[in-house]
Protein backbone atom coordinates (compact mmCIF):
# COMPACT_ATOMS: atom_id res chain seq x y z
CA UNK A 1 0.00 0.00 0.00
CA UNK A 2 1.40 3.37 -0.98
CA UNK A 3 1.15 5.84 1.88
CA UNK A 4 1.55 9.60 1.94
CA UNK A 5 4.29 10.68 4.33
CA UNK A 6 4.63 14.00 6.13
CA UNK A 7 8.22 14.23 7.32
CA UNK A 8 9.06 16.51 10.25
CA UNK A 9 12.76 17.18 10.66
CA UNK A 10 15.21 17.58 7.83
CA UNK A 11 18.39 16.37 9.47
CA UNK A 12 20.27 13.25 8.37
CA UNK A 13 17.34 10.93 9.14
CA UNK A 14 14.56 13.12 7.73
CA UNK A 15 16.49 13.73 4.53
CA UNK A 16 17.16 10.02 4.07
CA UNK A 17 13.47 9.23 4.56
CA UNK A 18 12.62 11.74 1.84
CA UNK A 19 15.24 10.23 -0.43
CA UNK A 20 14.37 6.55 0.13
CA UNK A 21 10.56 6.67 0.53
CA UNK A 22 9.81 5.93 -3.13
CA UNK A 23 12.01 2.81 -3.04
CA UNK A 24 9.71 1.52 -0.32
CA UNK A 25 6.65 2.38 -2.42
CA UNK A 26 5.59 5.48 -0.51
CA UNK A 27 5.30 9.11 -1.45
CA UNK A 28 6.39 12.18 0.53
CA UNK A 29 3.72 14.86 0.46
CA UNK A 30 5.11 17.26 3.06
CA UNK A 31 8.46 18.10 4.66
CA UNK A 32 9.32 20.54 7.44
CA UNK A 33 12.60 21.54 9.04
CA UNK A 34 12.88 23.68 12.16
CA UNK A 35 11.73 26.89 10.44
CA UNK A 36 10.25 26.16 7.02
CA UNK A 37 8.02 23.63 5.26
CA UNK A 38 6.72 22.50 1.90
CA UNK A 39 3.52 20.65 1.00
CA UNK A 40 2.34 19.04 -2.24
CA UNK A 41 -0.62 16.67 -2.09
CA UNK A 42 0.51 15.05 -5.34
CA UNK A 43 3.92 14.23 -3.93
CA UNK A 44 7.09 16.28 -3.62
CA UNK A 45 10.13 15.79 -5.79
CA UNK A 46 12.70 14.49 -3.28
CA UNK A 47 15.69 15.77 -5.23
CA UNK A 48 14.50 19.36 -5.38
CA UNK A 49 13.55 19.43 -1.68
CA UNK A 50 16.95 18.08 -0.67
CA UNK A 51 18.70 20.37 -3.12
CA UNK A 52 16.99 23.45 -1.68
CA UNK A 53 17.80 22.28 1.86
CA UNK A 54 21.44 22.00 0.93
CA UNK A 55 21.65 25.29 -1.01
CA UNK A 56 19.45 27.55 1.10
CA UNK A 57 19.10 25.73 4.38
CA UNK A 58 15.30 25.74 4.00
CA UNK A 59 12.83 23.26 2.51
CA UNK A 60 10.14 25.66 1.28
CA UNK A 61 8.05 28.70 2.03
CA UNK A 62 5.28 27.05 4.02
CA UNK A 63 4.98 26.60 7.77
CA UNK A 64 5.03 23.44 9.89
CA UNK A 65 1.35 24.07 10.71
CA UNK A 66 0.60 23.67 7.01
CA UNK A 67 2.23 20.25 7.13
CA UNK A 68 0.20 19.16 10.15
CA UNK A 69 -2.99 20.43 8.49
CA UNK A 70 -2.21 18.73 5.18
CA UNK A 71 -3.69 15.51 3.89
CA UNK A 72 -1.19 12.78 4.81
CA UNK A 73 -1.37 9.17 6.06
CA UNK A 74 1.71 8.90 8.23
CA UNK A 75 3.57 11.53 10.22
CA UNK A 76 7.29 10.79 10.38
CA UNK A 77 8.62 12.57 13.48
CA UNK A 78 12.37 12.98 12.98
CA UNK A 79 13.03 16.25 14.79
CA UNK A 80 15.89 16.36 17.31
CA UNK A 81 15.38 14.46 20.55
CA UNK A 82 14.47 16.71 23.48
CA UNK A 83 14.25 15.74 27.14
CA UNK A 84 11.68 16.54 29.81
CA UNK A 85 8.36 17.39 28.11
CA UNK A 86 9.83 16.15 24.80
CA UNK A 87 8.54 19.21 22.94
CA UNK A 88 7.94 20.15 20.21
CA UNK A 89 8.01 16.48 19.11
CA UNK A 90 5.26 15.44 21.49
CA UNK A 91 2.83 18.10 20.20
CA UNK A 92 3.49 17.02 16.62
CA UNK A 93 2.56 13.47 17.56
CA UNK A 94 -0.50 14.65 19.46
CA UNK A 95 -1.69 16.65 16.46
CA UNK A 96 -1.36 13.64 14.16
CA UNK A 97 -3.05 11.17 16.51
CA UNK A 98 -5.92 13.56 17.22
CA UNK A 99 -6.44 13.67 13.45
CA UNK A 100 -6.46 9.84 13.44
CA UNK A 101 -3.22 9.59 11.48
CA UNK A 102 -0.41 7.10 12.01
CA UNK A 103 2.85 8.20 13.57
CA UNK A 104 6.36 6.83 13.08
CA UNK A 105 9.02 8.31 15.34
CA UNK A 106 12.78 8.48 15.00
CA UNK A 107 12.75 11.07 17.80
CA UNK A 108 13.46 9.31 21.11
CA UNK A 109 12.11 12.07 23.36
CA UNK A 110 8.35 11.37 23.35
CA UNK A 111 8.82 7.59 23.61
CA UNK A 112 11.37 7.74 26.42
CA UNK A 113 10.07 10.67 28.43
CA UNK A 114 6.29 10.49 27.88
CA UNK A 115 5.57 6.89 26.92
CA UNK A 116 2.38 6.58 28.94
CA UNK A 117 1.00 9.90 27.57
CA UNK A 118 1.83 8.69 24.09
CA UNK A 119 0.02 5.38 24.56
CA UNK A 120 -2.99 7.18 26.02
CA UNK A 121 -3.21 9.40 22.92
CA UNK A 122 -2.84 6.34 20.71
CA UNK A 123 -5.67 4.56 22.55
CA UNK A 124 -8.05 7.40 21.68
CA UNK A 125 -6.96 7.54 18.05
CA UNK A 126 -7.55 5.46 14.96
CA UNK A 127 -3.86 6.00 14.25
CA UNK A 128 -0.95 3.95 15.57
CA UNK A 129 2.46 4.84 17.01
CA UNK A 130 5.66 3.06 16.00
CA UNK A 131 9.26 3.92 16.81
CA UNK A 132 11.66 1.23 15.61
CA UNK A 133 14.15 3.90 14.53
CA UNK A 134 14.44 5.23 18.09
CA UNK A 135 16.36 2.15 19.32
CA UNK A 136 19.41 0.74 17.57
CA UNK A 137 19.12 2.49 14.19
CA UNK A 138 18.78 -0.10 11.45
CA UNK A 139 18.61 -3.05 13.88
CA UNK A 140 15.05 -4.41 14.12
CA UNK A 141 15.02 -4.53 17.91
CA UNK A 142 11.46 -3.47 18.64
CA UNK A 143 9.85 -5.51 15.88
CA UNK A 144 11.77 -8.56 17.13
CA UNK A 145 10.49 -7.93 20.65
CA UNK A 146 6.99 -7.48 19.29
CA UNK A 147 7.18 -10.70 17.25
CA UNK A 148 8.71 -12.65 20.10
CA UNK A 149 6.31 -11.25 22.67
CA UNK A 150 7.58 -8.83 25.33
CA UNK A 151 6.16 -11.09 28.06
CA UNK A 152 8.69 -13.76 27.12
CA UNK A 153 11.71 -11.50 27.27
CA UNK A 154 13.22 -11.02 30.71
CA UNK A 155 15.76 -8.33 29.93
CA UNK A 156 17.52 -6.39 27.20
CA UNK A 157 21.11 -5.21 27.31
CA UNK A 158 23.74 -4.09 24.92
CA UNK A 159 25.79 -1.43 23.23
CA UNK A 160 23.44 1.30 22.06
CA UNK A 161 25.69 4.24 21.33
CA UNK A 162 28.10 4.05 18.43
CA UNK A 163 30.07 7.15 19.41
CA UNK A 164 30.92 5.87 22.88
CA UNK A 165 31.68 2.44 21.49
CA UNK A 166 33.97 3.88 18.83
CA UNK A 167 35.89 5.82 21.47
CA UNK A 168 36.27 2.86 23.85
CA UNK A 169 37.24 0.38 21.16
CA UNK A 170 39.77 2.80 19.61
CA UNK A 171 41.26 3.53 23.02
CA UNK A 172 41.64 -0.19 23.71
CA UNK A 173 43.01 -1.05 20.27
CA UNK A 174 45.46 1.83 19.91
CA UNK A 175 46.39 2.48 23.52
CA UNK A 176 45.34 6.12 23.15
CA UNK A 177 43.79 8.45 25.70
CA UNK A 178 40.17 9.55 25.84
CA UNK A 179 40.71 13.15 24.69
CA UNK A 180 42.84 12.05 21.75
CA UNK A 181 40.31 9.53 20.47
CA UNK A 182 37.40 11.91 21.04
CA UNK A 183 39.10 14.53 18.87
CA UNK A 184 39.69 11.88 16.21
CA UNK A 185 36.03 10.83 16.38
CA UNK A 186 34.97 14.46 15.92
CA UNK A 187 37.24 14.78 12.87
CA UNK A 188 35.66 11.66 11.40
CA UNK A 189 32.15 12.92 12.11
CA UNK A 190 31.53 9.99 14.47
CA UNK A 191 31.20 12.37 17.42
CA UNK A 192 29.37 15.70 17.51
CA UNK A 193 31.10 18.98 18.35
CA UNK A 194 29.30 18.70 21.68
CA UNK A 195 29.62 14.98 22.41
CA UNK A 196 28.06 15.09 25.87
CA UNK A 197 24.77 13.44 24.86
CA UNK A 198 26.71 10.38 23.68
CA UNK A 199 29.69 10.13 26.04
CA UNK A 200 27.72 10.89 29.18
CA UNK A 201 25.43 7.97 28.43
CA UNK A 202 22.20 9.98 27.94
CA UNK A 203 21.52 8.71 24.43
CA UNK A 204 22.05 5.06 25.42
CA UNK A 205 19.91 5.63 28.51
CA UNK A 206 17.00 6.98 26.43
CA UNK A 207 17.12 3.87 24.27
CA UNK A 208 17.15 1.62 27.33
CA UNK A 209 14.24 3.55 28.83
CA UNK A 210 12.33 2.91 25.61
CA UNK A 211 13.21 -0.79 25.83
CA UNK A 212 12.07 -0.85 29.45
CA UNK A 213 8.79 0.81 28.46
CA UNK A 214 8.22 -1.72 25.69
CA UNK A 215 9.14 -4.72 27.86
CA UNK A 216 7.33 -3.50 30.97
CA UNK A 217 4.39 -1.73 29.27
CA UNK A 218 5.37 1.77 30.30
CA UNK A 219 6.19 3.57 33.49
CA UNK A 220 9.78 4.61 32.76
CA UNK A 221 11.42 7.91 31.90
CA UNK A 222 15.03 9.11 31.93
CA UNK A 223 14.71 10.04 35.61
CA UNK A 224 14.35 6.35 36.43
CA UNK A 225 17.66 5.46 34.81
CA UNK A 226 21.01 5.16 36.57
CA UNK A 227 23.43 6.71 34.09
CA UNK A 228 27.22 6.94 34.02
CA UNK A 229 29.32 7.97 31.02
CA UNK A 230 32.72 7.02 29.71
CA UNK A 231 34.55 10.32 30.29
CA UNK A 232 36.34 8.98 33.36
CA UNK A 233 37.81 5.88 31.76
CA UNK A 234 41.58 6.33 31.33
CA UNK A 235 43.67 4.31 28.87
CA UNK A 236 45.34 2.55 31.79
CA UNK A 237 41.99 1.00 32.79
CA UNK A 238 41.55 -0.45 29.30
CA UNK A 239 45.13 -1.79 29.39
CA UNK A 240 44.50 -3.56 32.69
CA UNK A 241 41.26 -4.99 31.34
CA UNK A 242 43.02 -6.26 28.20
CA UNK A 243 45.73 -7.99 30.26
CA UNK A 244 42.97 -10.09 31.74
CA UNK A 245 41.19 -10.83 28.44
CA UNK A 246 38.53 -8.22 29.05
CA UNK A 247 37.54 -4.82 27.78
CA UNK A 248 35.24 -1.97 28.74
CA UNK A 249 32.03 -1.11 26.90
CA UNK A 250 29.26 1.37 27.61
CA UNK A 251 26.51 -1.12 28.37
CA UNK A 252 22.86 -0.28 28.73
CA UNK A 253 20.49 -2.59 30.56
CA UNK A 254 16.72 -2.72 30.80
CA UNK A 255 15.82 -5.34 33.38
CA UNK A 256 12.91 -5.82 35.77
CA UNK A 257 15.05 -4.10 38.41
CA UNK A 258 15.38 -0.95 36.30
CA UNK A 259 17.38 0.88 33.68
CA UNK A 260 21.10 1.24 34.01
CA UNK A 261 23.80 2.58 31.69
CA UNK A 262 27.49 2.65 32.48
CA UNK A 263 30.93 1.42 31.50
CA UNK A 264 31.21 -2.30 32.27
CA UNK A 265 33.84 -5.01 32.02
CA UNK A 266 32.99 -7.58 29.37
CA UNK A 267 35.01 -10.45 27.86
CA UNK A 268 37.28 -9.08 25.12
CA UNK A 269 35.99 -11.52 22.53
CA UNK A 270 32.52 -11.74 23.98
CA UNK A 271 29.29 -11.15 22.14
CA UNK A 272 28.76 -7.66 23.48
CA UNK A 273 32.29 -6.39 22.79
CA UNK A 274 31.43 -5.08 19.32
CA UNK A 275 33.94 -2.65 17.88
CA UNK A 276 33.74 0.70 16.14
CA UNK A 277 30.35 2.33 15.79
CA UNK A 278 28.51 -1.00 15.69
CA UNK A 279 25.61 -1.55 18.08
CA UNK A 280 24.31 -4.76 19.60
CA UNK A 281 21.22 -5.64 21.57
CA UNK A 282 20.95 -8.87 23.50
CA UNK A 283 17.47 -10.04 24.43
CA UNK A 284 17.35 -12.47 27.31
CA UNK A 285 14.35 -14.67 26.57
CA UNK A 286 12.37 -16.82 28.95
CA UNK A 287 12.59 -20.10 27.07
CA UNK A 288 15.04 -19.60 24.21
CA UNK A 289 18.29 -18.30 25.65
CA UNK A 290 19.73 -15.08 24.31
CA UNK A 291 18.98 -13.41 21.01
CA UNK A 292 21.74 -11.12 19.77
CA UNK A 293 20.93 -8.47 17.21
CA UNK A 294 23.81 -6.48 15.84
CA UNK A 295 24.24 -3.86 13.15
CA UNK A 296 24.47 -0.17 12.42
CA UNK A 297 22.90 1.81 15.21
CA UNK A 298 23.01 5.27 13.68
CA UNK A 299 23.30 7.19 10.41
CA UNK A 300 20.76 8.76 8.06
CA UNK A 301 20.04 5.94 5.59
CA UNK A 302 20.36 3.28 8.31
CA UNK A 303 17.82 4.94 10.59
CA UNK A 304 15.57 5.80 7.64
CA UNK A 305 15.28 2.09 6.81
CA UNK A 306 13.84 1.52 10.28
CA UNK A 307 11.39 4.39 9.77
CA UNK A 308 10.28 3.04 6.41
CA UNK A 309 9.94 -0.51 7.78
CA UNK A 310 7.54 0.89 10.37
CA UNK A 311 5.62 2.70 7.61
CA UNK A 312 5.38 -0.48 5.57
CA UNK A 313 4.00 -2.33 8.59
CA UNK A 314 0.94 -0.08 8.62
CA UNK A 315 -2.04 -1.92 7.14
Amino acid at each position, binding site marked *: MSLRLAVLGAGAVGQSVVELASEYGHVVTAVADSTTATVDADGLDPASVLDRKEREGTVGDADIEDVLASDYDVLVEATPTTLGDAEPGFSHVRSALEADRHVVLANKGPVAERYDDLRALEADSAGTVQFEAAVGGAIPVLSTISDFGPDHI*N*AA*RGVLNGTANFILSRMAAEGLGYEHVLAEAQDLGVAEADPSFDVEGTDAALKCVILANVLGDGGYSLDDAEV*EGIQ*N*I*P*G*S*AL*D*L*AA*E*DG*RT*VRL*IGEATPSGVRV*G*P*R*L*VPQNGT*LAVSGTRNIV*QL*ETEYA*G*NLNLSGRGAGGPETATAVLSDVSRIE
Partner: protein
Amino acid sequence: MSENASDTFDSNGGGDSEVDDGDGTETDGGEHPQAHTIRLELVDEPGQLLAALSPISENGGNLLSIFHERGNLTPRGRIPVEVDLECPPDRFETIVTALRDNGVNVIQAGAERYGEELTLLLVGHLIDTDLSDTLQRIQRCADATVTDLSLSAPEGTDDVSSARLRLAARTGKTERVLDAIREVTDGKDIHVVEPLTEVSA
Protein backbone atom coordinates in the same frame (compact mmCIF):
# COMPACT_ATOMS: atom_id res chain seq x y z
CA MET B 1 55.55 -41.27 59.07
CA SER B 2 53.13 -43.65 57.47
CA GLU B 3 49.87 -41.83 57.54
CA ASN B 4 47.28 -42.55 54.96
CA ALA B 5 43.56 -42.23 54.74
CA SER B 6 42.58 -45.59 56.22
CA ASP B 7 44.99 -45.10 59.12
CA THR B 8 43.36 -41.91 59.97
CA PHE B 9 39.84 -43.20 60.05
CA ASP B 10 40.97 -45.96 62.41
CA SER B 11 42.91 -43.73 64.73
CA ASN B 12 40.17 -41.17 64.60
CA GLY B 13 37.85 -43.48 66.49
CA GLY B 14 34.43 -41.94 66.40
CA GLY B 15 34.82 -40.63 62.89
CA ASP B 16 33.49 -43.78 61.25
CA SER B 17 30.19 -43.75 63.02
CA GLU B 18 29.38 -40.33 61.66
CA VAL B 19 30.03 -41.09 58.04
CA ASP B 20 26.80 -41.01 56.09
CA ASP B 21 26.49 -44.54 54.77
CA GLY B 22 23.91 -43.55 52.23
CA ASP B 23 20.81 -44.75 54.03
CA GLY B 24 19.66 -41.26 54.77
CA THR B 25 21.23 -40.95 58.21
CA GLU B 26 21.36 -37.35 59.25
CA THR B 27 24.68 -35.79 59.83
CA ASP B 28 25.26 -34.83 63.42
CA GLY B 29 24.02 -31.33 64.03
CA GLY B 30 21.31 -30.88 61.49
CA GLU B 31 20.02 -31.45 58.01
CA HIS B 32 21.34 -30.73 54.55
CA PRO B 33 25.06 -31.29 54.90
CA GLN B 34 27.10 -29.56 52.20
CA ALA B 35 30.36 -30.74 50.71
CA HIS B 36 33.42 -28.59 51.31
CA THR B 37 37.04 -28.81 50.32
CA ILE B 38 39.81 -27.71 52.64
CA ARG B 39 43.42 -27.42 51.52
CA LEU B 40 45.99 -27.72 54.26
CA GLU B 41 49.74 -27.57 54.53
CA LEU B 42 51.29 -29.99 57.01
CA VAL B 43 54.78 -30.13 58.44
CA ASP B 44 56.37 -33.51 57.73
CA GLU B 45 56.30 -34.76 61.32
CA PRO B 46 54.55 -37.72 62.91
CA GLY B 47 51.00 -37.14 64.09
CA GLN B 48 50.42 -34.07 61.95
CA LEU B 49 47.66 -35.54 59.81
CA LEU B 50 45.81 -36.79 62.85
CA ALA B 51 46.10 -33.36 64.44
CA ALA B 52 44.64 -31.91 61.28
CA LEU B 53 41.73 -34.31 61.01
CA SER B 54 40.46 -34.70 64.56
CA PRO B 55 38.98 -31.15 64.69
CA ILE B 56 36.80 -32.09 61.73
CA SER B 57 35.07 -35.05 63.34
CA GLU B 58 35.04 -33.43 66.75
CA ASN B 59 32.97 -30.61 65.28
CA GLY B 60 30.46 -32.68 63.39
CA GLY B 61 32.11 -32.98 59.99
CA ASN B 62 32.13 -36.16 57.94
CA LEU B 63 35.36 -36.94 56.14
CA LEU B 64 34.67 -37.87 52.54
CA SER B 65 38.20 -38.19 51.19
CA ILE B 66 41.75 -37.21 51.92
CA PHE B 67 44.29 -36.54 49.23
CA HIS B 68 47.69 -36.63 50.85
CA GLU B 69 50.74 -36.40 48.65
CA ARG B 70 53.84 -36.97 50.68
CA GLY B 71 56.13 -36.86 47.70
CA ASN B 72 54.95 -33.47 46.54
CA LEU B 73 56.14 -30.60 48.71
CA THR B 74 54.90 -27.02 48.61
CA PRO B 75 57.45 -24.21 48.01
CA ARG B 76 57.65 -23.88 51.78
CA GLY B 77 58.63 -27.53 52.19
CA ARG B 78 55.27 -28.57 53.55
CA ILE B 79 53.05 -31.43 52.48
CA PRO B 80 49.87 -30.35 50.70
CA VAL B 81 46.72 -32.15 51.83
CA GLU B 82 43.28 -31.81 50.35
CA VAL B 83 40.37 -32.86 52.54
CA ASP B 84 36.83 -33.27 51.32
CA LEU B 85 34.22 -33.28 54.01
CA GLU B 86 30.60 -32.62 54.49
CA CYS B 87 28.90 -30.85 57.32
CA PRO B 88 25.91 -28.64 57.98
CA PRO B 89 26.59 -25.12 56.67
CA ASP B 90 26.70 -23.60 60.13
CA ARG B 91 29.41 -26.02 61.25
CA PHE B 92 31.94 -25.28 58.56
CA GLU B 93 33.17 -22.04 60.10
CA THR B 94 33.68 -23.80 63.44
CA ILE B 95 35.69 -26.58 61.81
CA VAL B 96 38.01 -24.17 60.03
CA THR B 97 38.53 -22.18 63.22
CA ALA B 98 39.25 -25.37 65.18
CA LEU B 99 41.82 -26.42 62.57
CA ARG B 100 43.57 -23.08 62.83
CA ASP B 101 43.46 -23.26 66.65
CA ASN B 102 45.21 -26.62 66.36
CA GLY B 103 48.04 -24.92 64.52
CA VAL B 104 47.08 -26.29 61.11
CA ASN B 105 47.87 -24.04 58.18
CA VAL B 106 44.61 -23.77 56.23
CA ILE B 107 45.38 -22.61 52.69
CA GLN B 108 41.89 -22.60 51.31
CA ALA B 109 38.64 -23.37 53.01
CA GLY B 110 35.69 -24.46 50.99
CA ALA B 111 35.33 -23.79 47.32
CA GLU B 112 31.65 -23.30 48.07
CA ARG B 113 32.33 -20.55 50.51
CA TYR B 114 34.02 -18.28 48.00
CA GLY B 115 32.43 -19.79 44.98
CA GLU B 116 32.27 -16.70 42.82
CA GLU B 117 35.04 -14.76 41.27
CA LEU B 118 34.57 -11.14 40.47
CA THR B 119 36.86 -8.91 38.43
CA LEU B 120 36.41 -5.16 38.39
CA LEU B 121 38.31 -1.96 37.71
CA LEU B 122 38.87 0.94 40.05
CA VAL B 123 39.67 4.35 38.55
CA GLY B 124 40.66 7.42 40.54
CA HIS B 125 43.41 8.79 42.73
CA LEU B 126 43.93 5.32 44.13
CA ILE B 127 47.31 5.89 45.70
CA ASP B 128 46.58 9.24 47.28
CA THR B 129 43.37 7.86 48.76
CA ASP B 130 45.24 5.00 50.47
CA LEU B 131 44.81 1.95 48.26
CA SER B 132 45.65 -0.38 51.11
CA ASP B 133 42.85 1.07 53.23
CA THR B 134 40.47 0.82 50.26
CA LEU B 135 41.25 -2.85 49.80
CA GLN B 136 41.01 -3.65 53.49
CA ARG B 137 37.65 -1.95 53.74
CA ILE B 138 36.40 -3.75 50.66
CA GLN B 139 37.42 -7.08 52.18
CA ARG B 140 35.84 -6.21 55.50
CA CYS B 141 32.62 -4.59 54.32
CA ALA B 142 32.02 -6.82 51.36
CA ASP B 143 33.00 -10.09 53.03
CA ALA B 144 35.12 -10.90 50.02
CA THR B 145 38.76 -11.82 49.57
CA VAL B 146 41.07 -9.89 47.28
CA THR B 147 42.88 -12.56 45.28
CA ASP B 148 44.63 -10.43 42.67
CA LEU B 149 45.53 -6.80 42.13
CA SER B 150 47.17 -4.98 39.25
CA LEU B 151 47.85 -1.28 39.42
CA SER B 152 48.63 1.07 36.57
CA ALA B 153 49.61 4.66 37.23
CA PRO B 154 51.31 5.82 34.03
CA GLU B 155 51.34 9.47 35.16
CA GLY B 156 52.42 8.71 38.70
CA THR B 157 50.20 10.13 41.41
CA ASP B 158 49.61 13.37 39.49
CA ASP B 159 46.82 11.85 37.44
CA VAL B 160 44.24 9.15 37.97
CA SER B 161 45.41 5.58 38.20
CA SER B 162 43.61 2.34 37.49
CA ALA B 163 43.52 -0.95 39.29
CA ARG B 164 42.18 -4.32 38.29
CA LEU B 165 40.89 -6.23 41.24
CA ARG B 166 39.92 -9.87 41.48
CA LEU B 167 37.76 -10.86 44.38
CA ALA B 168 36.48 -14.16 45.65
CA ALA B 169 32.97 -13.74 46.95
CA ARG B 170 30.38 -16.00 48.49
CA THR B 171 28.14 -17.72 46.01
CA GLY B 172 25.09 -15.62 45.22
CA LYS B 173 26.41 -12.60 47.09
CA THR B 174 28.08 -10.67 44.29
CA GLU B 175 25.38 -7.99 44.23
CA ARG B 176 25.93 -7.37 47.91
CA VAL B 177 29.67 -7.27 47.39
CA LEU B 178 29.29 -4.67 44.63
CA ASP B 179 27.01 -2.55 46.83
CA ALA B 180 29.58 -2.63 49.59
CA ILE B 181 32.38 -1.72 47.18
CA ARG B 182 30.40 1.26 45.91
CA GLU B 183 29.99 2.45 49.47
CA VAL B 184 33.73 2.29 50.11
CA THR B 185 34.70 3.93 46.81
CA ASP B 186 32.05 6.67 46.79
CA GLY B 187 33.71 8.40 49.72
CA LYS B 188 37.04 8.44 47.88
CA ASP B 189 35.74 9.60 44.49
CA ILE B 190 36.83 6.33 42.92
CA HIS B 191 34.91 5.06 39.89
CA VAL B 192 34.12 1.38 39.75
CA VAL B 193 33.81 -0.40 36.41
CA GLU B 194 31.74 -3.41 37.33
CA PRO B 195 31.63 -6.64 35.39
CA LEU B 196 28.52 -7.27 33.37
CA THR B 197 26.81 -10.39 34.61
CA GLU B 198 25.01 -11.88 31.66
CA VAL B 199 22.88 -14.91 31.81
CA SER B 200 24.65 -17.30 29.47
CA ALA B 201 22.66 -18.36 26.48
